[in-house]
Protein backbone atom coordinates (compact mmCIF):
# COMPACT_ATOMS: atom_id res chain seq x y z
CA UNK A 1 0.00 0.00 0.00
CA UNK A 2 1.33 3.38 -0.94
CA UNK A 3 2.01 5.78 1.89
CA UNK A 4 0.09 9.04 1.90
CA UNK A 5 1.99 12.20 2.67
CA UNK A 6 -0.11 14.96 4.21
CA UNK A 7 0.66 18.35 5.63
CA UNK A 8 -0.40 17.21 9.12
CA UNK A 9 1.77 14.09 9.43
CA UNK A 10 5.49 13.58 10.07
CA UNK A 11 7.95 15.72 8.12
CA UNK A 12 8.92 14.32 4.68
CA UNK A 13 10.65 15.85 1.66
CA UNK A 14 10.17 15.04 -2.02
CA UNK A 15 13.34 15.62 -3.98
CA UNK A 16 14.58 15.40 -7.56
CA UNK A 17 17.99 13.92 -8.35
CA UNK A 18 19.44 15.23 -11.62
CA UNK A 19 22.35 13.72 -13.50
CA UNK A 20 25.22 11.61 -12.06
CA UNK A 21 25.15 7.92 -11.17
CA UNK A 22 21.57 7.58 -10.04
CA UNK A 23 21.49 3.78 -9.68
CA UNK A 24 24.63 3.79 -7.59
CA UNK A 25 23.17 6.55 -5.49
CA UNK A 26 20.03 4.50 -4.86
CA UNK A 27 22.04 1.36 -4.07
CA UNK A 28 24.13 3.21 -1.48
CA UNK A 29 21.02 4.56 0.19
CA UNK A 30 19.33 1.16 0.26
CA UNK A 31 22.45 -0.48 1.63
CA UNK A 32 22.63 2.12 4.39
CA UNK A 33 19.03 1.48 5.40
CA UNK A 34 17.73 4.90 4.36
CA UNK A 35 14.02 4.66 3.76
CA UNK A 36 12.94 6.02 0.37
CA UNK A 37 9.35 6.19 -0.80
CA UNK A 38 7.78 6.61 -4.24
CA UNK A 39 11.03 6.31 -6.19
CA UNK A 40 10.28 7.02 -9.84
CA UNK A 41 12.16 8.13 -12.94
CA UNK A 42 11.09 10.63 -15.57
CA UNK A 43 13.17 12.45 -18.21
CA UNK A 44 16.41 11.22 -16.68
CA UNK A 45 15.43 12.68 -13.32
CA UNK A 46 14.94 10.55 -10.22
CA UNK A 47 12.14 11.52 -7.84
CA UNK A 48 11.67 10.14 -4.30
CA UNK A 49 10.33 11.00 -0.87
CA UNK A 50 12.48 10.78 2.21
CA UNK A 51 12.18 11.57 5.91
CA UNK A 52 13.28 15.12 6.70
CA UNK A 53 15.83 13.81 9.20
CA UNK A 54 17.55 11.71 6.47
CA UNK A 55 17.76 14.51 3.94
CA UNK A 56 21.23 15.75 5.04
CA UNK A 57 22.72 12.30 4.54
CA UNK A 58 21.05 11.99 1.14
CA UNK A 59 22.40 15.36 0.04
CA UNK A 60 25.95 14.31 0.97
CA UNK A 61 25.60 10.97 -0.81
CA UNK A 62 24.26 12.75 -3.90
CA UNK A 63 27.31 15.02 -4.05
CA UNK A 64 29.60 11.97 -3.86
CA UNK A 65 27.76 10.43 -6.84
CA UNK A 66 27.74 13.59 -8.94
CA UNK A 67 24.03 14.21 -8.52
CA UNK A 68 22.36 17.57 -8.11
CA UNK A 69 19.47 17.52 -5.66
CA UNK A 70 16.46 19.81 -5.73
CA UNK A 71 13.59 19.83 -3.23
CA UNK A 72 10.27 19.73 -5.06
CA UNK A 73 7.80 19.43 -2.16
CA UNK A 74 7.68 19.42 1.62
CA UNK A 75 5.11 17.53 3.67
CA UNK A 76 4.28 17.44 7.37
CA UNK A 77 3.10 19.58 10.25
CA UNK A 78 6.60 20.87 10.96
CA UNK A 79 6.86 22.56 7.56
CA UNK A 80 3.29 23.79 7.78
CA UNK A 81 3.90 25.50 11.12
CA UNK A 82 7.33 26.74 10.09
CA UNK A 83 5.83 29.37 7.83
CA UNK A 84 3.93 30.78 10.83
CA UNK A 85 7.03 31.04 13.00
CA UNK A 86 6.94 34.83 13.10
CA UNK A 87 3.25 35.00 13.99
CA UNK A 88 3.60 34.81 17.75
CA UNK A 89 -0.09 35.43 18.31
CA UNK A 90 -0.99 32.06 16.81
CA UNK A 91 1.20 30.28 19.35
CA UNK A 92 0.66 32.59 22.30
CA UNK A 93 -3.13 32.61 21.86
CA UNK A 94 -3.71 28.85 22.28
CA UNK A 95 -1.11 28.73 25.04
CA UNK A 96 -2.87 31.55 26.92
CA UNK A 97 -6.18 29.77 26.39
CA UNK A 98 -4.80 26.53 27.82
CA UNK A 99 -3.18 28.43 30.71
CA UNK A 100 -6.46 30.21 31.52
CA UNK A 101 -8.34 26.91 31.48
CA UNK A 102 -5.71 25.27 33.67
CA UNK A 103 -5.68 28.15 36.16
CA UNK A 104 -9.45 28.48 36.34
CA UNK A 105 -9.85 24.75 36.84
CA UNK A 106 -7.93 25.15 40.09
CA UNK A 107 -10.86 27.01 41.69
CA UNK A 108 -14.34 26.08 42.82
CA UNK A 109 -16.94 27.83 40.71
CA UNK A 110 -20.17 26.12 41.64
CA UNK A 111 -21.60 24.25 44.60
CA UNK A 112 -24.62 22.02 44.09
CA UNK A 113 -26.67 20.60 46.92
CA UNK A 114 -29.03 17.67 46.58
CA UNK A 115 -31.04 15.38 48.82
CA UNK A 116 -32.12 17.99 51.39
CA UNK A 117 -35.75 18.34 52.46
CA UNK A 118 -35.88 19.89 55.91
CA UNK A 119 -32.35 21.28 55.81
CA UNK A 120 -32.00 24.53 53.92
CA UNK A 121 -29.40 25.00 51.22
CA UNK A 122 -28.07 27.99 53.16
CA UNK A 123 -27.21 25.69 56.08
CA UNK A 124 -25.20 23.41 53.84
CA UNK A 125 -23.54 26.32 52.04
CA UNK A 126 -22.48 27.76 55.39
CA UNK A 127 -21.12 24.35 56.43
CA UNK A 128 -19.09 24.22 53.21
CA UNK A 129 -17.95 27.79 53.78
CA UNK A 130 -16.68 26.93 57.26
CA UNK A 131 -14.60 24.15 55.69
CA UNK A 132 -13.14 26.54 53.13
CA UNK A 133 -15.38 25.47 50.26
CA UNK A 134 -16.93 28.46 48.54
CA UNK A 135 -17.05 29.78 44.97
CA UNK A 136 -13.56 31.03 44.22
CA UNK A 137 -11.75 28.77 46.73
CA UNK A 138 -8.54 27.08 45.63
CA UNK A 139 -9.24 23.36 45.23
CA UNK A 140 -6.10 22.25 47.07
CA UNK A 141 -6.90 24.34 50.14
CA UNK A 142 -9.63 22.11 51.51
CA UNK A 143 -10.35 18.49 52.12
CA UNK A 144 -13.80 17.18 51.30
CA UNK A 145 -13.43 14.52 54.00
CA UNK A 146 -13.10 17.22 56.66
CA UNK A 147 -16.30 18.81 55.45
CA UNK A 148 -18.12 15.47 55.61
CA UNK A 149 -16.91 14.83 59.17
CA UNK A 150 -17.82 18.36 60.28
CA UNK A 151 -21.25 18.05 58.68
CA UNK A 152 -21.96 14.78 60.46
CA UNK A 153 -20.89 16.18 63.83
CA UNK A 154 -22.50 19.64 63.55
CA UNK A 155 -25.80 18.96 61.81
CA UNK A 156 -27.88 16.56 63.84
CA UNK A 157 -30.48 16.11 61.13
CA UNK A 158 -27.98 14.46 58.80
CA UNK A 159 -27.72 10.72 58.53
CA UNK A 160 -25.26 10.78 55.62
CA UNK A 161 -23.33 13.41 53.70
CA UNK A 162 -21.01 13.19 50.72
CA UNK A 163 -18.90 16.07 49.44
CA UNK A 164 -17.35 15.42 46.05
CA UNK A 165 -15.38 17.57 43.68
CA UNK A 166 -15.71 17.12 39.96
CA UNK A 167 -13.51 19.63 38.20
CA UNK A 168 -14.55 23.05 39.42
CA UNK A 169 -17.90 21.93 40.77
CA UNK A 170 -18.64 20.68 44.28
CA UNK A 171 -21.51 18.29 44.81
CA UNK A 172 -22.93 18.08 48.32
CA UNK A 173 -25.24 15.10 48.58
CA UNK A 174 -27.08 14.60 51.84
CA UNK A 175 -29.54 12.18 53.34
CA UNK A 176 -31.56 13.41 56.24
CA UNK A 177 -32.58 11.40 59.27
CA UNK A 178 -36.12 10.20 59.16
CA UNK A 179 -38.19 11.77 61.93
CA UNK A 180 -38.18 9.53 64.97
CA UNK A 181 -41.55 7.99 65.47
CA UNK A 182 -42.61 8.79 69.03
CA UNK A 183 -43.96 5.77 70.70
CA UNK A 184 -46.47 7.80 72.56
CA UNK A 185 -49.78 6.15 72.88
CA UNK A 186 -52.52 8.13 71.11
CA UNK A 187 -54.99 9.94 73.39
CA UNK A 188 -57.96 7.76 72.38
CA UNK A 189 -56.23 4.51 73.44
CA UNK A 190 -56.59 3.61 77.14
CA UNK A 191 -53.38 3.36 79.15
CA UNK A 192 -51.88 3.30 82.66
CA UNK A 193 -48.86 5.17 83.99
CA UNK A 194 -46.20 3.00 85.67
CA UNK A 195 -42.98 3.95 87.43
CA UNK A 196 -39.70 3.78 85.54
CA UNK A 197 -37.47 4.40 88.59
CA UNK A 198 -37.25 3.26 92.21
CA UNK A 199 -37.79 6.07 94.72
CA UNK A 200 -40.21 7.99 96.93
CA UNK A 201 -43.17 9.89 95.50
CA UNK A 202 -42.98 13.58 96.41
CA UNK A 203 -45.82 15.11 94.45
CA UNK A 204 -48.48 13.93 92.04
CA UNK A 205 -50.77 15.88 89.71
CA UNK A 206 -53.39 13.67 88.10
CA UNK A 207 -55.18 14.98 85.01
CA UNK A 208 -57.00 11.79 84.05
CA UNK A 209 -57.17 8.47 85.84
CA UNK A 210 -56.93 7.27 89.42
CA UNK A 211 -53.80 7.72 91.54
CA UNK A 212 -52.81 4.36 93.02
CA UNK A 213 -50.17 5.56 95.51
CA UNK A 214 -50.05 8.32 98.08
CA UNK A 215 -47.51 11.10 98.32
CA UNK A 216 -44.60 9.98 100.49
CA UNK A 217 -44.98 6.30 99.54
CA UNK A 218 -42.03 4.34 98.33
CA UNK A 219 -42.33 3.12 94.77
CA UNK A 220 -40.47 0.57 92.74
CA UNK A 221 -39.75 0.30 89.05
CA UNK A 222 -42.74 -1.00 87.10
CA UNK A 223 -45.29 -0.22 89.83
CA UNK A 224 -48.69 1.14 88.73
CA UNK A 225 -48.96 4.82 89.64
CA UNK A 226 -51.99 6.17 87.76
CA UNK A 227 -54.59 3.71 86.59
CA UNK A 228 -56.61 4.18 83.43
CA UNK A 229 -59.33 1.85 84.67
CA UNK A 230 -62.04 3.98 86.25
CA UNK A 231 -65.19 2.86 88.02
CA UNK A 232 -68.08 4.84 86.63
CA UNK A 233 -71.24 4.55 88.75
CA UNK A 234 -73.54 4.56 85.67
CA UNK A 235 -71.64 2.56 83.06
CA UNK A 236 -69.58 0.33 85.30
CA UNK A 237 -65.85 0.06 84.65
CA UNK A 238 -64.46 2.15 81.82
CA UNK A 239 -60.92 2.49 80.43
CA UNK A 240 -59.43 5.90 79.80
CA UNK A 241 -56.10 7.37 78.74
CA UNK A 242 -54.32 8.18 82.05
CA UNK A 243 -52.40 11.44 82.31
CA UNK A 244 -50.50 13.16 85.10
CA UNK A 245 -47.19 14.51 86.41
CA UNK A 246 -45.31 12.61 89.07
CA UNK A 247 -42.20 13.78 90.90
CA UNK A 248 -40.11 11.31 92.88
CA UNK A 249 -36.96 11.46 94.95
CA UNK A 250 -34.54 8.79 93.73
CA UNK A 251 -31.12 7.59 94.74
CA UNK A 252 -28.37 6.40 92.43
CA UNK A 253 -24.76 5.48 93.03
CA UNK A 254 -21.94 6.11 90.54
CA UNK A 255 -18.30 5.03 90.73
CA UNK A 256 -15.29 6.74 89.14
CA UNK A 257 -11.83 5.18 89.13
CA UNK A 258 -8.39 6.47 88.05
CA UNK A 259 -4.98 4.80 88.54
CA UNK A 260 -1.98 6.69 89.94
CA UNK A 261 0.16 5.57 87.00
CA UNK A 262 -1.15 7.09 83.75
CA UNK A 263 0.11 7.55 80.22
CA UNK A 264 0.59 11.21 79.32
CA UNK A 265 1.13 12.83 75.90
CA UNK A 266 3.95 15.33 76.29
CA UNK A 267 5.06 17.76 73.53
CA UNK A 268 8.76 17.78 72.73
CA UNK A 269 10.56 21.11 72.98
CA UNK A 270 11.74 20.98 69.35
CA UNK A 271 9.18 22.05 66.75
CA UNK A 272 9.48 21.78 62.97
CA UNK A 273 8.36 24.53 60.66
CA UNK A 274 7.36 24.77 57.02
CA UNK A 275 6.84 28.10 55.30
CA UNK A 276 4.37 29.03 52.59
CA UNK A 277 4.00 32.22 50.59
CA UNK A 278 0.37 33.23 50.23
CA UNK A 279 -1.29 34.87 47.22
CA UNK A 280 -4.93 35.21 48.16
CA UNK A 281 -6.04 31.65 48.77
CA UNK A 282 -2.99 30.20 47.04
CA UNK A 283 -0.15 28.97 49.15
CA UNK A 284 3.22 28.09 47.66
CA UNK A 285 5.49 25.96 49.74
CA UNK A 286 8.97 27.33 50.22
CA UNK A 287 11.50 24.91 48.73
CA UNK A 288 14.21 26.00 51.15
CA UNK A 289 13.06 24.56 54.44
CA UNK A 290 10.89 21.50 54.42
CA UNK A 291 10.92 19.39 57.54
CA UNK A 292 10.98 15.64 57.25
CA UNK A 293 7.91 14.25 58.93
CA UNK A 294 7.66 10.60 59.75
CA UNK A 295 4.25 8.93 59.70
CA UNK A 296 5.12 6.90 62.76
CA UNK A 297 5.52 9.96 64.98
CA UNK A 298 2.66 11.34 67.01
CA UNK A 299 2.44 14.81 65.50
CA UNK A 300 0.05 17.72 65.74
CA UNK A 301 -0.09 20.45 63.13
CA UNK A 302 -1.18 24.06 63.42
CA UNK A 303 -0.80 27.12 61.22
CA UNK A 304 0.10 30.72 61.86
CA UNK A 305 -0.45 33.54 59.39
CA UNK A 306 1.27 36.89 59.13
CA UNK A 307 2.12 39.70 56.75
CA UNK A 308 5.55 39.96 55.18
CA UNK A 309 7.20 43.13 56.42
CA UNK A 310 9.61 45.32 54.48
CA UNK A 311 11.39 47.93 56.61
CA UNK A 312 8.81 47.38 59.32
CA UNK A 313 5.86 48.06 57.00
CA UNK A 314 3.31 45.37 56.23
CA UNK A 315 3.14 44.36 52.56
CA UNK A 316 -0.01 42.84 51.00
CA UNK A 317 1.85 39.55 50.80
CA UNK A 318 1.11 37.07 53.52
CA UNK A 319 2.98 34.02 54.71
CA UNK A 320 1.82 30.85 56.35
CA UNK A 321 3.88 29.02 58.90
CA UNK A 322 3.06 25.36 59.45
CA UNK A 323 4.14 24.18 62.89
CA UNK A 324 4.64 20.48 63.53
CA UNK A 325 4.80 19.49 67.18
CA UNK A 326 5.98 16.01 68.00
CA UNK A 327 4.56 14.31 71.05
CA UNK A 328 5.93 11.48 73.08
CA UNK A 329 4.10 9.24 75.47
CA UNK A 330 5.42 8.84 78.96
CA UNK A 331 4.27 7.11 82.10
CA UNK A 332 3.43 9.59 84.83
CA UNK A 333 2.76 8.74 88.47
CA UNK A 334 0.31 11.27 89.85
CA UNK A 335 -0.04 12.35 93.45
CA UNK A 336 -3.15 11.49 95.41
CA UNK A 337 -4.44 15.11 95.34
CA UNK A 338 -4.00 15.31 91.56
CA UNK A 339 -5.93 12.08 90.99
CA UNK A 340 -8.75 13.33 93.23
CA UNK A 341 -8.89 16.56 91.20
CA UNK A 342 -9.16 14.50 87.99
CA UNK A 343 -11.92 12.39 89.54
CA UNK A 344 -13.83 15.54 90.57
CA UNK A 345 -13.60 16.72 86.98
CA UNK A 346 -15.02 13.41 85.75
CA UNK A 347 -17.80 13.65 88.33
CA UNK A 348 -18.82 17.15 87.24
CA UNK A 349 -18.72 15.97 83.62
CA UNK A 350 -21.08 13.12 84.48
CA UNK A 351 -23.49 15.50 86.25
CA UNK A 352 -23.52 17.87 83.29
CA UNK A 353 -24.25 15.08 80.84
CA UNK A 354 -26.49 12.60 82.64
CA UNK A 355 -28.26 14.51 85.42
CA UNK A 356 -29.32 17.46 83.33
CA UNK A 357 -33.07 16.88 83.63
CA UNK A 358 -32.98 16.19 87.39
CA UNK A 359 -32.58 18.37 90.46
CA UNK A 360 -29.64 17.14 92.52
CA UNK A 361 -30.69 17.31 96.18
CA UNK A 362 -27.48 15.91 97.61
CA UNK A 363 -24.36 14.14 96.44
CA UNK A 364 -22.48 12.17 99.08
CA UNK A 365 -18.95 11.34 97.97
CA UNK A 366 -16.79 8.60 99.38
CA UNK A 367 -13.12 8.40 98.37
CA UNK A 368 -11.54 4.95 98.55
CA UNK A 369 -7.76 4.88 98.15
CA UNK A 370 -6.62 1.59 96.69
CA UNK A 371 -3.16 0.22 96.01
CA UNK A 372 -3.01 1.26 92.34
CA UNK A 373 -5.52 4.07 92.20
CA UNK A 374 -8.40 5.95 93.74
CA UNK A 375 -12.09 5.11 93.54
CA UNK A 376 -14.69 7.84 94.02
CA UNK A 377 -18.14 6.58 94.93
CA UNK A 378 -20.92 9.19 94.78
CA UNK A 379 -24.45 8.61 96.01
CA UNK A 380 -26.83 11.07 94.39
CA UNK A 381 -30.24 11.98 95.72
CA UNK A 382 -32.20 13.55 92.90
CA UNK A 383 -35.71 14.76 92.24
CA UNK A 384 -36.95 13.65 88.84
CA UNK A 385 -40.13 13.28 86.86
CA UNK A 386 -41.13 9.65 86.66
CA UNK A 387 -43.82 7.61 84.99
CA UNK A 388 -44.23 6.01 81.59
CA UNK A 389 -47.40 5.12 79.79
CA UNK A 390 -48.39 1.49 79.36
CA UNK A 391 -51.20 0.37 77.12
CA UNK A 392 -54.07 -1.46 78.75
CA UNK A 393 -54.63 -4.82 77.07
CA UNK A 394 -58.26 -5.78 76.97
CA UNK A 395 -59.01 -9.47 76.52
CA UNK A 396 -62.59 -8.90 75.28
CA UNK A 397 -61.56 -6.27 72.72
Amino acid at each position, binding site marked *: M*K*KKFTSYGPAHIRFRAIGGY*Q*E*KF*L*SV*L*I*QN*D*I*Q*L*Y*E*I*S*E*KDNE*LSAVVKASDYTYIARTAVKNGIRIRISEKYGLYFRLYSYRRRWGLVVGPMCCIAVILILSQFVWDIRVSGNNNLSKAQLYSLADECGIYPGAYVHNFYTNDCECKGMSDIKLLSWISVEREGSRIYIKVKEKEPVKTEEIPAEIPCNIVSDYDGQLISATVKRGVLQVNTGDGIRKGQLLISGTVDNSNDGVIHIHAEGELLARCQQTEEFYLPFKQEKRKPLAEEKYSYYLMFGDFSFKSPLRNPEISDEDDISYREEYGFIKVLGINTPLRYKKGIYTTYEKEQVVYRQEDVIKQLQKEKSGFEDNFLQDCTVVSAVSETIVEEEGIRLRVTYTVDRNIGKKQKISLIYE
Partner: protein
Amino acid sequence: MNVNKLAKKFEKLKNTTRQHSFIYISDNSYVDVEYCHSIIKFENELIILQLAKSIVKIIGFNLSMKNYGYRNVKIYGKIYSIQFEEDTAEENV
Protein backbone atom coordinates in the same frame (compact mmCIF):
# COMPACT_ATOMS: atom_id res chain seq x y z
CA MET B 1 25.59 -3.37 24.11
CA ASN B 2 21.88 -2.93 23.57
CA VAL B 3 20.18 -6.23 22.69
CA ASN B 4 18.18 -4.62 19.88
CA LYS B 5 21.31 -3.21 18.26
CA LEU B 6 23.02 -6.57 18.57
CA ALA B 7 20.04 -8.29 16.94
CA LYS B 8 20.03 -5.75 14.11
CA LYS B 9 23.73 -6.30 13.46
CA PHE B 10 23.22 -10.03 13.45
CA GLU B 11 20.39 -9.69 10.90
CA LYS B 12 22.65 -7.56 8.69
CA LEU B 13 25.42 -10.12 8.92
CA LYS B 14 22.96 -12.85 8.00
CA ASN B 15 21.77 -10.87 4.98
CA THR B 16 25.27 -10.18 3.68
CA THR B 17 26.12 -13.86 3.75
CA ARG B 18 22.88 -15.20 2.38
CA GLN B 19 22.93 -16.98 -0.96
CA HIS B 20 19.38 -16.46 -2.17
CA SER B 21 16.66 -13.83 -2.43
CA PHE B 22 12.89 -14.09 -2.23
CA ILE B 23 10.61 -12.49 -4.80
CA TYR B 24 6.92 -12.10 -4.15
CA ILE B 25 4.76 -11.20 -7.14
CA SER B 26 1.23 -9.90 -6.63
CA ASP B 27 -0.72 -9.69 -9.92
CA ASN B 28 1.01 -7.46 -12.42
CA SER B 29 1.08 -4.38 -10.22
CA TYR B 30 3.38 -5.16 -7.35
CA VAL B 31 6.64 -7.07 -6.81
CA ASP B 32 8.38 -7.44 -3.49
CA VAL B 33 12.08 -8.33 -3.64
CA GLU B 34 13.69 -9.40 -0.41
CA TYR B 35 17.42 -8.87 -0.26
CA CYS B 36 18.39 -6.75 -3.22
CA HIS B 37 22.14 -6.34 -3.43
CA SER B 38 22.13 -3.23 -5.59
CA ILE B 39 20.23 -1.40 -8.32
CA ILE B 40 21.86 -1.73 -11.70
CA LYS B 41 19.35 0.26 -13.71
CA PHE B 42 16.37 2.32 -12.76
CA GLU B 43 14.11 3.78 -15.45
CA ASN B 44 10.44 4.41 -15.99
CA GLU B 45 10.01 1.18 -18.00
CA LEU B 46 12.90 -0.96 -16.77
CA ILE B 47 14.37 -1.85 -13.40
CA ILE B 48 17.37 -4.17 -13.13
CA LEU B 49 18.26 -5.44 -9.69
CA GLN B 50 21.33 -7.34 -8.54
CA LEU B 51 20.28 -10.15 -6.23
CA ALA B 52 22.39 -12.59 -4.24
CA LYS B 53 22.93 -15.09 -7.05
CA SER B 54 21.32 -13.58 -10.12
CA ILE B 55 20.13 -10.45 -11.86
CA VAL B 56 16.42 -9.75 -12.21
CA LYS B 57 15.02 -7.54 -14.95
CA ILE B 58 11.56 -6.06 -14.41
CA ILE B 59 9.94 -4.56 -17.50
CA GLY B 60 6.77 -2.52 -17.26
CA PHE B 61 5.27 0.91 -17.45
CA ASN B 62 5.28 3.74 -14.92
CA LEU B 63 7.45 1.78 -12.51
CA SER B 64 8.12 3.20 -9.08
CA MET B 65 9.97 1.81 -6.12
CA LYS B 66 10.10 1.95 -2.36
CA ASN B 67 12.62 0.40 -0.04
CA TYR B 68 11.90 -0.99 3.44
CA GLY B 69 13.86 -2.83 6.06
CA TYR B 70 17.39 -3.83 5.16
CA ARG B 71 17.90 -4.15 1.36
CA ASN B 72 14.27 -4.94 0.64
CA VAL B 73 12.46 -3.15 -2.16
CA LYS B 74 8.89 -2.96 -3.39
CA ILE B 75 8.19 -2.17 -7.02
CA TYR B 76 4.85 -0.75 -8.14
CA GLY B 77 3.54 -0.05 -11.62
CA LYS B 78 2.18 -1.94 -14.61
CA ILE B 79 4.52 -4.93 -14.87
CA TYR B 80 4.81 -6.75 -18.22
CA SER B 81 7.57 -9.25 -17.57
CA ILE B 82 10.19 -10.42 -15.14
CA GLN B 83 13.39 -11.93 -16.50
CA PHE B 84 16.27 -13.62 -14.77
CA GLU B 85 19.86 -13.50 -15.93
CA GLU B 86 22.95 -15.24 -14.72
CA ASP B 87 25.34 -13.09 -12.75
CA THR B 88 28.30 -13.12 -15.17
CA ALA B 89 30.47 -11.10 -12.83
CA GLU B 90 30.29 -13.89 -10.23
CA GLU B 91 31.09 -16.59 -12.86
CA ASN B 92 34.16 -14.68 -14.02
CA VAL B 93 35.46 -14.58 -10.44
